[in-house]
């Protein structure tokens, strides 16, 4: 048997197994039950428009707050970690190791309940705001490491060129190093953003007012109200509708940046 024939045969068998498995799953599944439980049109009509106007909107707002907050705090932490001043490095390292090591849900819970008590302070946005603060803290730890790697990936010659032109360290950082670092870390940063989108579903542990509910919380509540799982499917679709264009956008951005490499 010729190698190409053998290869083709092997691939054919694989496809066959796949098709058989698919047919088996389709035949075994109880389609009536699936339709009543997961694709109930009455429940769908009930979910709209709140699932978009409230739930999806909240998820996007929480994501933006957590990402921007995490980006700012993460940048500060990354710069501290690269600082020649040892105590800055220590603080940054301790912070990053701590918040990367803890489950996000625990930090959100802690911020939502412990912070208002410990500091006799009610964060803006109530317990959801406090929970968001926790999410910012966690994202910052991950983002800091990403930014640090990006800064270190910018060739040393770039800094030397800028300094030799008389540019001060801060100008060099903001006009030369960071723009290049952020181009380098666009893919991992997108990853962080997608993770944050999904992690906003953990905010429910902070306890949410009805109008503050994110996609997952909204869907779970509606699901138990209607004793039907359709809202969960809807929520899943909403997440994909949010994340897919986003990753497309970033891919486009990356191609655009290629000319500046």
């Amino acid at each position, binding site marked *: 048997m010729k190698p190409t024939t053998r290869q083709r045969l092997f691939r054919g068998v694989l496809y066959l197994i796949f098709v058989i498995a698919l047919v088996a799953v389709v035949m075994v599944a109880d389609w009536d039950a699936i339709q009543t439980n997961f694709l109930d049109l009455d429940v769908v009509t009930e979910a709209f428009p709140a699932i978009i106007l409230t739930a999806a909107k909240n998820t996007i707002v929480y994501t933006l707050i957590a990402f921007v907050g995490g980006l700012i705090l993460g940048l500060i932490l990354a710069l501290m970690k690269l600082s020649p001043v040892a105590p800055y490095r220590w603080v940054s390292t301790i912070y990053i190791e701590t918040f990367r090591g803890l489950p996000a849900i625990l930090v959100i819970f802690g911020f939502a309940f412990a912070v208002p008590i410990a500091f006799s302070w009610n964060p803006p946005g109530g317990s959801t705001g406090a929970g968001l603060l926790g999410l910012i803290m966690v994202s910052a730890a991950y983002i800091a490491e990403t930014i640090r790697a990006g800064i270190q990936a910018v060739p040393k010659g770039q800094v030397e*060129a800028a300094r030799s032109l*008389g540019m001060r360290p801060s100008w060099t950082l903001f006009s030369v190093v960071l723009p290049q670092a952020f181009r380098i870390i666009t893919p991992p940063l997108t990853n962080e953003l997608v993770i944050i989108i999904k992690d906003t579903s953990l905010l429910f542990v902070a306890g949410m007012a009805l109008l503050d509910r994110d996609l997952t919380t909204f869907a779970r509540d509606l699901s138990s109200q209607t004793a039907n799982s359709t809202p969960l499917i809807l929520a899943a679709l909403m997440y994909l509708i949010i994340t897919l264009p986003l990753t497309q956008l970033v891919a486009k951005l990356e191609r655009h940046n290629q000319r500046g490499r």
Partner: protein
Amino acid sequence: MTEPRANTAMSSIPAIQVNQLHKSFGDNEVLTGIDFHVDQGEVVCVIGPSGSGKSTLLRCVNRLEEPTKGTIVVEGVDITDKETDLDRVRTRIGMVFQQFNLFPHLNVLDNLTLAQRRAKKRSKKEAREVAMKNLTKVGLEHKADAFPAQLSGGQQQRVAIARALSMDPDMMLFDEPTSALDPELVGDVLEVMKQLALEGMTMMVVTHEMGFAREVGDRVVFMDGGVVVEQGKPEDVLGNPQHERTISFLSKVL
């Protein structure tokens, strides 16, 4: 090349004066007591085997390397003094690197205007005009909107020269400016440098281009093992070297 150049009023102070310069990287002493100077309007070519410390010397002159010991005086200002505003001094010292080091995220024009606007506080319009003047000088005015990645190595290096010139420096440092170039691209860069020298620019050039040193240099300095071994007129050092190490080096490269 021996006609008197411009700047007679200031030519009493050397552009660069290096006294007893030592530089170590850890245990490795790269410069072991260098005395060196460049006069106003002079073109000094520094040659020597790799590891001789010539690039380190050049990088010390604008303090990209921190000297371990010794003083460096640029136009009468001691740049090893902690009080000296280094960024200000650096705007008067243009530097050209072996690897060009253009800013890849900016187009050619922005590469040339960034430091002018930041460090020289020039208006956008003025910075642009200066940039275009210098791009024309290096023959690349038509590449103002290009990104560095779209240029050949030789073009990138000419842009890098134009970028340094846009700060209106009093002197230019060249760190092996043609070593990273394909052989057929070297000529254009050397031509630009020669033009600069003819205009009376003070230049310190670390190079392996003996032809350039001979033709354009006012003085050639041969370094080996962290010291200046021999220096003098190009025809003397290159044509009739006195020191044994110079003879041995030149026999390998010429």
